């Protein structure tokens, strides 16, 4: 019998505790009271934990930035989260050490002594969520991390190489779900898109190309903003330090769409 991701929460509230009303279609303007504690508990009930894998067989697509932001958002929502850094440059631990709010986040790195699945199992025993950041290449870890996941996010920029590699990554995720006989929610995240109101022609073109191969593309795109480029230097994370900013709203919207994807099962089913 195929394993299905448990669905304990109907939807994720926004910073004011209100549930989204209009689906996951781009940005929503949440009134956020600066004086209120914005922390909201994200949970899967007492007995479940979620594994989110960021995968793309091409490097430089935005996996690590998206993984960093996801961990930060989970921390901002008072959720217990750990990370597994399969990128040999080990960017996650180094970045979290520079951000006081994230210094406590446990970051595991692989060793020849432990399998990836064993490492994730250890993290999962202690945390409600595990975020996996893969190396930007088709490695022996790619499908392993996908098979472990409840949600696979495939960041893709606008170039033809990103598209080609994004489709390959999508197909690997489909195969991982088939091998494991499980539903693995998955979605392509368009990264470094224009942050303005007008979407460039190439973004619509890219969405269409992904649709052609049956890949689900997240409605919310990861906008190209200086805040994300500066984040690893400034240790300023918009959705942790300035939730009213446009960059923060962009990522919160994206995060909610990701969480909804986990809850609704496979993105392929959503696309169909």
């Amino acid at each position: 019998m195929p394993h299905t991701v448990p669905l304990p929460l109907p939807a994720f509230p926004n910073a004011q505790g209100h549930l989204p009303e209009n689906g996951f279609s781009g940005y929503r303007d949440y009134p956020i009271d600066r004086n209120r504690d914005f922390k909201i508990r994200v949970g899967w009930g007492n007995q479940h934990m979620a594994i989110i894998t960021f995968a793309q067989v091409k490097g430089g697509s935005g996996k690590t930035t998206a993984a960093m932001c996801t961990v930060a958002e989970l921390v901002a929502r008072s959720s217990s989260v750990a990370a597994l850094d399969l990128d040999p440059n080990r960017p996650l631990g180094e970045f979290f050490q520079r951000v006081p709010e994230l210094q406590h986040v446990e970051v595991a790195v692989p060793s020849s002594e432990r399998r990836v699945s064993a490492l994730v199992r250890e993290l999962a025993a202690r945390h409600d969520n595990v975020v996996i950041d893969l190396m930007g290449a088709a490695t022996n870890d790619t499908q392993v991390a996908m098979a472990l996941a409840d949600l696979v996010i495939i960041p893709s920029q606008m170039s033809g190489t990103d598209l080609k590699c994004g489709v390959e990554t999508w197909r690997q995720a489909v195969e991982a779900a088939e091998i494991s006989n499980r539903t693995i929610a998955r979605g392509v995240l368009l990264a470094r898109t224009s942050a303005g109101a007008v979407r460039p022609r190439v973004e619509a073109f890219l969405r269409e190309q992904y649709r052609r191969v049956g890949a689900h593309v997240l409605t919310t795109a990861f906008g190209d903003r200086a805040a994300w480029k500066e984040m690893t230097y400034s240790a300023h994370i918009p959705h942790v330090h300035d939730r009213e900013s446009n960059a923060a709203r962009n990522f919160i919207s994206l995060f909610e769409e990701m969480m909804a994807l986990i809850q609704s099962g496979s993105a392929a089913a959503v696309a169909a």
Partner: protein
Amino acid sequence: MRARHSRPALQAPDLSPPPQQPSSAPPRVAADDPRFAAAAQLETHDAYVRGVQEGRVRVVNPDTLPPRPDEGGLAAPRRRSPETSLSTKVPEYVMQQLRLRYAETGITIRNQILIALRKEGLEINEDDIQDERKRPRK
């Protein structure tokens, strides 16, 4: 002469087992969680070779490369001593060399260090220099 006061009777304490507390929250991860079973299927040497042959694997992460199955089918001896963890920092170029040697020889970083220490005269049993990952899983 003082009157002898009767001493209070000794009362046996309640030695019955404590009432069962309501079961605590179930573990986050069940022993038979299908996510881990599926991933383990893909962490074998055979799955790795298949991935290379079919083009899914084009870059090897030496830290997580599945070990080759034991030739001859003889089970490796088990380590004798209980293990304790050791964490330290080394120069990046040393780590790179250790990883490279692992990729070339299949000798884990742990075992490379133990072998080097034994050469320096530390007492280390041969049985404790085993790659436990090469043991066939039951």
